[in-house]
């Protein structure tokens, strides 16, 4: 290949023009970020990764590359139990029905969507034997006056949390000033240049 870029010129031509082989896709993982101490965890988006541990690293790089945060966590999308999505005055909790307990209780993290178009926020934890019971208990324990459009329930053990010894992942962030707009103040140089120009 003839390119202006010497690196491109060095690329080996594979000679292969057949369409690529299908389906070498990774799993889907949902990412939650806690921006400040005391603030709830908030859903930020997804990453694709071969496993939970890799998804954690990719989430760190995708969502907290610039702004520092207290911690993040990730969960396999298949492990998120989703309620109906409602609109107008209809609270998602109106559609949650009573479910009897069915054995051992484990903890579930509950997330609320307060406004359509915004992100889900962590609301609290309930102890339940299955996700539907978790929603029912959340309607008793975590429901407030605030309108909720959608509820997620995630078994706490399915979440990859940030551990104490992960925190050094973010230690280098304050040194990376070159990533911030504030590091590119050209105002003075521009001003003196414009004054030169006028002379």
């Amino acid at each position, binding site marked *: *290949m003839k*390119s*202006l*870029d010497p*690196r*491109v010129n060095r*690329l*080996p*031509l*594979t000679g*292969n023009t057949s*369409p*690529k*082989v*299908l*389906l*070498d*896709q*990774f*799993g*889907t993982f*949902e990412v939650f970020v806690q921006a400040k101490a005391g603030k709830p965890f908030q*859903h930020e*988006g*997804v*990453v*694709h*990764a*071969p*496993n939970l541990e890799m998804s954690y690293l990719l989430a760190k*790089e*995708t*969502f907290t*590359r*610039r702004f520092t945060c207290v911690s993040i966590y990730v969960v*396999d*999308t*298949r492990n*998120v139990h*989703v309620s109906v*999505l409602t609109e107008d005055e209809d609270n998602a909790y109106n559609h949650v029905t009573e479910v009897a307990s069915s054995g051992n209780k484990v903890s579930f993290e509950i997330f609320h969507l307060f406004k*359509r*178009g915004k*992100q*889900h926020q962590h609301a609290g934890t309930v102890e339940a034997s299955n996700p539907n019971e978790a929603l029912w208990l959340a309607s008793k324990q975590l429901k407030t006056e605030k309108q909720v459009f*959608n509820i997620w329930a995630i078994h706490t053990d399915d979440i990859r949390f940030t551990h104490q010894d992960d925190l050094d992942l973010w230690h280098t962030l304050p040194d*990376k000033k*070159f*990533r911030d*707009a504030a*590091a*590119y*103040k*050209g105002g003075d*140089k*521009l001003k*003196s*240049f*414009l004054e*030169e120009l006028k002379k």
Partner: protein
Amino acid sequence: MYGGGNIFDEIKPDDVAGEDSIKLAEFEARIDRGEKIEPTDWMPKLYRKQLIRMIEQHAHSEIIGALPEGTWITRAPGFKRKMALMAKVQDEVGHGQLLYSAAETLGKSREQMIDDLINGKSKYSNVFNYPTFTWADCCFISWLVDAGAIVNQLANAKGSYGPYCRALERICAEESFHLKYGHHCVIYLASGTQKQRDMFQEAIYRWWPPMMHFFGPSDKISVHTEILMKWKVKMDTNDNMRNQFLDMYVPKIWELGFTIPDPKLKKNTATGRWEYTEPDWDEFKRVINGGGPCNKERLEVRRIAEERGRWVREALRAPKTEYITPLA
């Protein structure tokens, strides 16, 4: 970067004829109220199709847009510029990731999108089919192509589809760094030696026509997009976006003492609109259909990267995980 000048399919009158009229009315009422549409909501087929197309084009533009700038990382003047450019290119690829995820919520898998890019089926921003000959070309992209993209993205962030808006909010926050960085680079070239000034002037001569193309064909000749504007998929007309960009940046370019290669370019004080020589839309079409100086190279680089990285993905593949549509 780099959403802008999206190419929509031609819309036929019967495209929405088959839709449930009650559901359609509810859908439109929700958009009129300023509410967002979420992935599990009912939506017309045309809305889904055109949104996938637009967000996918935007994502590809981020990925391909990383190439003309990425090529300058090793040759950027000095350590600081290298670090900054590397961070910027990483951001662009990160934006591609966010946008692919947003498009995925509509039901098209990421792999299918990447396939369509490599096989030439999907488009990306035309501006990246031009080469960056010098460092100044790279600075033109960092400052002005990014600026154009921001005009577009700030408008789109007010659109009707929740996941796309959320991705754009994150993207726009990072763009402030790109814009400041790009302007900083240009100020240094402008206030440097005569040779540096000449370099940037030449870059303007090269990049002005693609920059004018960036916002897409003139409203007089572009595909009718009234229904997409009504559904808040497309937020403003191509000409309005172009006008907004000219309004914000032409004075800044002139302020630095540079010439823009269009003798007709001036602001009409009566209408408040910019007047300019009509861009060459035949050239635009020729390039978007594969005839530009770099189309082949851009796709070839992506394809080779895909092929050479395949063994890594194969090695990492884990049967326990499964690709599924993201939630939001």
